[in-house]
């Protein structure tokens, strides 16, 4: 009990009323009850969680796959602009050379030195994460010597950049897709 009381021997009921008085006094002077505190803390935590969840959006433009966009575009231009056909007739592919690039046969002289080898054609750091495919409306094209596709299948868990060009061989148009991840 407080030391300021000089008199002793107050009756117990007096102490209880004093206690009740003091807690009543405390409740009367209280600006914020427990419920107020709970609501305020909840709102604050929601705001902090919301602000923190925007951090990936802040970093996203600098995330670093912008070089892949340019690289896929240039790979597609290289393929249709001279590697699989003739440089003076871009987008018109030589059917036998295209077949040789993707399936290895027939054995003719073409402008590329490494058939079926993406690492040697595009560089060793790109070769493992690039896929080149020639497709028509129904899917990958098969000219009779094998599927016209090279490279691993694109993963579904990473960002994949696609570049496409229209090519003409065998009397009709196809679409060449270069996918890089």
């Amino acid at each position: 009990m407080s030391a300021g009381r000089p008199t002793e021997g107050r009756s117990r009921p007096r102490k209880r009323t004093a206690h009740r008085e003091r807690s009543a006094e405390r409740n009367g002077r209280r600006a914020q009850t427990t419920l107020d505190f709970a609501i305020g803390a909840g709102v604050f935590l929601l705001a902090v969680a919301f602000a923190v969840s925007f951090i990936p959006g802040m970093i996203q433009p600098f995330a670093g796959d912008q070089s892949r966009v340019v690289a896929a575009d240039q790979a597609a231009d290289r393929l249709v602009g001279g590697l699989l056909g003739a440089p003076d007739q871009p987008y018109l592919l030589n059917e036998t050379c295209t077949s040789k690039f993707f399936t290895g046969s027939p054995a003719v002289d073409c402008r590329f030195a490494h058939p079926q080898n993406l690492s040697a054609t595009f560089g060793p750091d790109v070769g493992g994460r690039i896929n080149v495919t020639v497709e028509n409306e129904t899917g990958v094209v098969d000219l009779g010597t094998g599927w016209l596709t090279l490279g691993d299948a694109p993963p579904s868990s990473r960002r994949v950049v696609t570049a496409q060009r229209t090519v003409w061989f065998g009397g009709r148009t196809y679409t060449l897709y270069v996918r890089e991840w």
Partner: protein
Amino acid sequence: MSRGQAHTLEAFAAAVVLLASLTFALQVTAVTPLTASTSSQHIENQQAAVAGSLLGAAAANGTLKPSVLFWNSTGHRFYNATRKGAYPMGGPPTAFGRALNRTFVSRGFAVDVNVYYLDPGPELRRHRQRMVDFGQPSDHGTSATYTLTLYDDDVLYDQNGPTGTRINDSAFYAPDAFRASPAYNVIVVEVVVWRM
């Protein structure tokens, strides 16, 4: 005494700090042209590249010029074209038109093919003849062009191949802009592509 908050001003300051942090978080997210969306710059570049490669392949293959010359001079329109002389909702019934349908129309893209020719007047103005008309392009449309030269001894084409009618003496949409030379006119074929 042990009060947590002494004055109401503290509450206002705390509320201002909270709102400022929320506003900062909303403003700091950056959307760039390369942000992944249905109309990022990369997608539009690829659309333009596919249109350009289609035109280049058709020209190198010799199928673009017959489509430009697929003109019905008696009806003053392209053959079987119904909408202002142009083909609605599809390409012309030529090899180039079939390639156009296969590359774009069947994949959900709308295509406008415009053929620009020169005016023989002194200012060399350009006029437009529509070949394929899907309507007004959207804001995210891209285009690719190819330039051809027509000569005085080129002939019109119809469903059976080249006819015997020279463009020089027929009601072709382009006039002879270079009367003193064997060249007839300079044609620019423009393909505008947008997603439907």
